[in-house]
Every structure is written in C-alpha cells, then in structure tokens.
C-alpha cells in the first residue's frame, strides 16, 4: 500500500521535472504556465501556441505519457512472464517478441516500404506485426511440444535466435542502412508525438487492467500445475492467455520505441522485494515502479548530452545498483 502512495507522489514529482527539464530552457513556473496554456488552447491549431507551450504540450507531455505507458507495459509483461516461467532471469522478450519486432522494423527500414498514407506508421506497424508473429511461432512450437513453461522458454529461444540471425543477415547484406537499424534497436523515445502516445498508453493501460483482473490466478498458478488444477485453475490454458497478454503489452511497447531492455526484468523483482509475491499487490507496484524508473531514465537520456542517449543503457545504470542494494538488504526474504 505504502509503495503505491509513495510511488504516485514520486511519479508526480518526476513528471513535473520531466516537463521542466530539456534542451529548451524553461523554468519551473514557466513550464507549468506553458502546460496550462497548452490545455487552454486545446482544439485550436498548433500555430496558436507559443514556443514553451509547443515544447511542453506537444513534445514533452506526450513523451512523458508514452514513457509512462511503456514503463507500465514492460513491467507488467515482465511480472507476468516471471509468474509463468517461475525463473528470476526471465524478461518479457523471452518469447522472441523483440527479435520479431526487430525483423519487422528492419525489413521496412531497409526496403523503404511506405504504406501509402500510412507511411508514418510503416515501421511501428511492421514491428508490432513482427512481434506478434514471433510470439505466434513460439506459442505454436511450445504448445506442440507439451505446453509447459520450459517449452515456452526453449521455443522462445529458438524463434528469437532464428529471427535475430535473419536481422543480422539483413544488416550485413545492406550495411548502408546499419545506422538507422541499430539506432532503432537501442530503443529511444526521440520522435514521439501525440498519436503514438495514444497508441501506446491506451492499449498499455487497458491490457494492464485486464492482467490485474487475473492477479489472483497468478497467485494460484505458483502452486504448480496439479494443485492449481485442484483449485480450479487450468494452468495450461491460463498460461496461454497470460502469454498473449504479455506479448501484446511487449509488442505495443516495442513497436514505437524499439527495444528497451532490462526494465521488464528488474522492476518486478524490485516490486517483489518491496511488496511480496501476492500479485494483487505485485502488479500495481510493478506498474508504479516501472513508470518511475523509465521516466527518470528518460530524463537523463534526454539531457545528459547534446545527442540523445539510448534509454535502455541508462536503465541498466540506474536500475542495477539499486537492485543490488535491495537484494543485499532484503535478500533473505526474497527467495524467488
């Protein structure tokens, strides 16, 4: 409970900080009045806005919300996967979703396909489709070989490796496009606009809420297949459903911003150390913590140097030592 309150407060602080800090110099009060000005002008065309209002309302605000959306999506997806696979080293990309997304994005970037009026969506759409396709392959392979957790892990490795190698082949055959592809792969929020934010945040929130509705089952699943069955939960069917949810969340996150690693792995662990293993607390806690961590990381990514840094690298820098500290302090309670 405490963590949710603390987390929300911290989120608010970070959010305000996010709107204030950036390449465009703004003071704290300026940022707030720009925000108010932006909302005041909602509905009128963009040329009515002044500079700060544009920056805060059209660049930073949507970006902050997109960051929160991705933070929530990856953290919930990671928590679900860790419950499904019961292994602490699991992250949401384990079903090959990231490789599928990379393949989709790379194909479009290299071939220069544009979808007529939808050219702005060509890469994200291809990435999303690639991600789900990869998951589909993984699920078919896993279910066909028994449908146990281990099958999913192995199938995910097979599919992920296969697709990654195709991506690598494409990069070596067309090295002139390497920069663009690599940049996408590192993950960044550089060119987020309101449309993308809506397409990230709304599905992320909705699917996360759906996952929350099944928090109790996620607890029951931890008893193992047989005991879960005796309580009335078909763990195999449930696992399929949860994997789909997790993959959709991950696909949404990856489609627009590339592959942000490490977040989906460490946030559920941090949340588990703080609130324990009951998913009715763990999932909301993961959401809050994930949003906070990614928001903080993106502030650094945006402002540390003149060129943007890949936000995934920043996460590792922030998250790993903090995680290590928690592990040392509360490691005994935390048995997996």
């Amino acid at each position, binding site marked *: 409970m405490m963590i949710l309150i603390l987390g929300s407060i911290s989120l608010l602080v970070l959010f305000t900080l996010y709107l204030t800090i*950036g*390449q*465009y110099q703004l003071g704290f009060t300026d940022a707030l009045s720009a925000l108010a000005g932006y909302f005041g002008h909602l509905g009128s*065309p*963009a*040329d009515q*806005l002044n*500079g700060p209002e*544009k*920056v805060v309302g*059209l*660049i*930073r605000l949507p970006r902050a919300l997109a960051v929160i959306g991705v933070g929530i999506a990856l953290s919930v997806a990671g928590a679900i996967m860790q419950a499904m696979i019961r292994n602490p080293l699991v992250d949401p990309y384990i079903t090959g979703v990231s490789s599928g997304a990379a393949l989709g994005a790379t194909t479009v*970037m290299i071939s220069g396909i*544009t979808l007529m*009026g*939808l*050219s*702005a*969506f*060509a*890469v994200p759409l291809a990435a999303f489709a690639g991600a789900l396709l990869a998951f589909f392959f993984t699920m078919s392979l896993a279910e066909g070989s028994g449908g146990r957790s281990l099958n999913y892990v192995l199938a995910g490795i097979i599919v992920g490796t296969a697709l990654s190698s195709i991506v690598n082949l494409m990069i*070596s*055959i*067309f*090295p*002139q*496009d390497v*920069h*663009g*592809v690599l*940049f*996408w792969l590192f993950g*960044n929020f*550089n*060119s*987020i*606009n*309101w*449309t993308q934010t*809506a*397409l990230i945040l*709304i*599905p992320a929130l*909705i*699917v996360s*809420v*759906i996952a929350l*509705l099944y928090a109790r089952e996620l607890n029951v699943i931890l008893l193992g297949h047989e005991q879960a069955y005796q309580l009335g939960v078909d763990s195999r069917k449930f696992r399929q459903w949860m994997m789909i949810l997790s993959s959709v969340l991950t696909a949404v996150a990856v489609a627009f911003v590339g592959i942000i690693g490490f977040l989906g792995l460490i946030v559920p662990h941090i949340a588990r150390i703080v609130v324990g293993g009951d998913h009715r607390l763990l999932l909301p806690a993961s959401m809050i913590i994930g949003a906070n961590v990614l928001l903080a990381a993106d502030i650094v990514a945006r402002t540390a140097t*003149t*060129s*943007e840094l890949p936000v995934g690298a920043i996460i590792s820098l922030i998250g790993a030592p903090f995680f290590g500290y928690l592990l040392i302090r509360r490691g005994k309670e935390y048995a997996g």
Partner: protein
Amino acid sequence: MNRKGIVAILVVAAMLVTAVVVVVSTQPSHTSSKGTIIDAYDRQVNITSTPKKIISVAPDITELVYALGAGQDLVGVTDYCDYPHDVVSRVENGTLKSIGGFYTPSAERIVNMTPDLVFVSAGVSSHRALVTQLEALDIKVIGLYDEVNISRVYDNIKLMGKVLDKQAQADQLVNDLSSTLSKIDAKVSAQTVKLRVMYVVWLSPLSVVGNGTSLNEMIQLAGGWNAFGNMQGWASPSLETLLTNDPDVILFSVMGGSQWDAEQLISDLSKDPIWNGTKAFQEGKVYMLKSQAANCFSRGGVRMTEAVQLLAEILYPQAFSAPSIPHSIGDEYRDYLTPLNALNTSALTVEVAGSVREVRG
C-alpha cells in the same frame, strides 16, 4: 459482474480506440493551393512565403543550402555539418546553432529556433518520424530525396530552389554541375582502357562499394570501372575476390573521426602478400581520402562533381593538366582540381571557393 464480460469490453474498447486514433491521425490536413510543393515523401507542403530561417538536418543538405546562396538564412545545423567553412565559424561564434546529431535531432531545439522551414532527408529512416513530430508542432518540413544517383541530386537542387525561391540559382547550379560532368566525360571517354577502381569504406570486415550505390555511379562518371561492380550495395568481398578482381586503383576512405595514418596503413598493407598482389599496390596507385576529401565522396550532393573530377584526375592524370596527386588527400583536395575550361562563375564556386582559402590557411 462477470469477469469475462469485463475483459471482452476492454479488449473491444482498446481496438476501437486504436482504430479511431489511426484514422484520425492519417487525415490529410493540407489542401492544394498555389504555393504547394510535393516533397520526397509525397507530402503536400504549403509554402506561402519564402523561408528566411532554415534548419538543415544533414550535412549534404547544409552544403546544398549554401550552394544556392541561402547559407546566411540557416539558423540550425547538425553536429556533423562542417562544410563550407562558414558553417564552422558561424557555429563557433554562435550565429548558427546545433540541433543535435544526425539520427537524433532534437525537436525541442528546433522549436527553440522558430524556423520557417526544416529540411530532412528521405534517405535517413529516423527522419520520417521527425517529420510527423514537426508537423504536429506546426513547423514546415520538406523531405529531400535520397541521393542514390546524380539525377536525384538534380531533383533536390530543383526542389530546394523552388522552396527557397532560388529557382534561377538552382537551374544555374544544375547546369554547372552537368556541364562539369560533360567536360570530365569528354576527357575520360577518350581513354581506351578503363581503369578498375576499388573504393574501400572499411577494412575489417573489408567493405567496398558495389553496384547500385551513388559512389558506383561516380566511379563510372569519372571514366572508371568499379572493380566490384558485380556485387550489390556495400559488399564484403573475400580476399580471394580481391585478387581476382585485381583493381588498378584503390581508394581508402576515412570518414568522421578515425584517423588512420595513411603512410602507416599503406606501408602495412604493402607488406601483405595478398594486397601486394594487386596491380594498384604494384604500381603504387593507392590513395587515402580524409576529412573533406572523403566527405565530398561519401556525402555526394553538390560536391559530387568535385569527387568525380578528383577521381578522374587520379585515374587519368594524362588527360588533365593536374599536379601530381599525393597518396593522402584531405581538406586541401580542391587545390588539385584543375579548372576545366570555360567554367561559369556561379554562386557555388564563389561561395565555396571563398571558404576554401580559409581552410588552407
């Protein structure tokens, strides 16, 4: 409340919202009118007045702006824009600001500069998303064509000329460039033997320029023959292929920061039995392109003709009354470009030539 029911409602809601957002955002918001320009992304952009504050998001775009005589209207360039020299000095004294990197231009900085127009390149995949972002910010953007060959370069010159209301200068520039190329062609087409050229972009793995690249076309325009023209794009030939294709002339290109020591590299490679076996090494026709010399090849754009000429002079010195070209060529490359007869004094040579004097000094 039935949980399955809630889930079903949520899923449908999510899909509906997504569909609505996509449909709404793809509504074309521009209507055709007099000042409408179609850019490289096939977008219709309305230019009502001549842009006086311009931002360039690529080095070759910056060079083009200067070539059309609009250099002083630039307010923002990337960290990598360094030619002509005026760009460098203006960045130093603060009259020209940086918008960040080539792949990560900062939308915030762009907004801060309140530009009238931003030029991006359709050849850079990350610029597409920037276009959408800038459109939302109500900043005009024009996408220039990916310069895969010389005709695209001309298209860009004309497009920018139309946008900046410098059509006369644009036409003049295109004329100058094409006439330069014809003059070069006149000299080299007389050569009976086409020399085989190898253009190396990276040493490990060995990467050369193959068919379908702008550099390939430049080699041909210079009267040469791409020794690796049978491979596509940026190709990685094996060392065996190196011996088989046996180039007559090898050009090593160094871009950006990594400064290979030309003498060291060439001397190391000349001890290697495979490299040694090539005609280029045996006849000492190995060259290293650095800094601006490398840039004029790799960036293409308006300096494409300079690159072609330089290469032509390397290949067929007897056709040009050029001074002997050293094996390591850098910023001073223009010193070696002999004047081809009856070249018009255009904005290009005045502007660019003026800055070269500063480079040398």
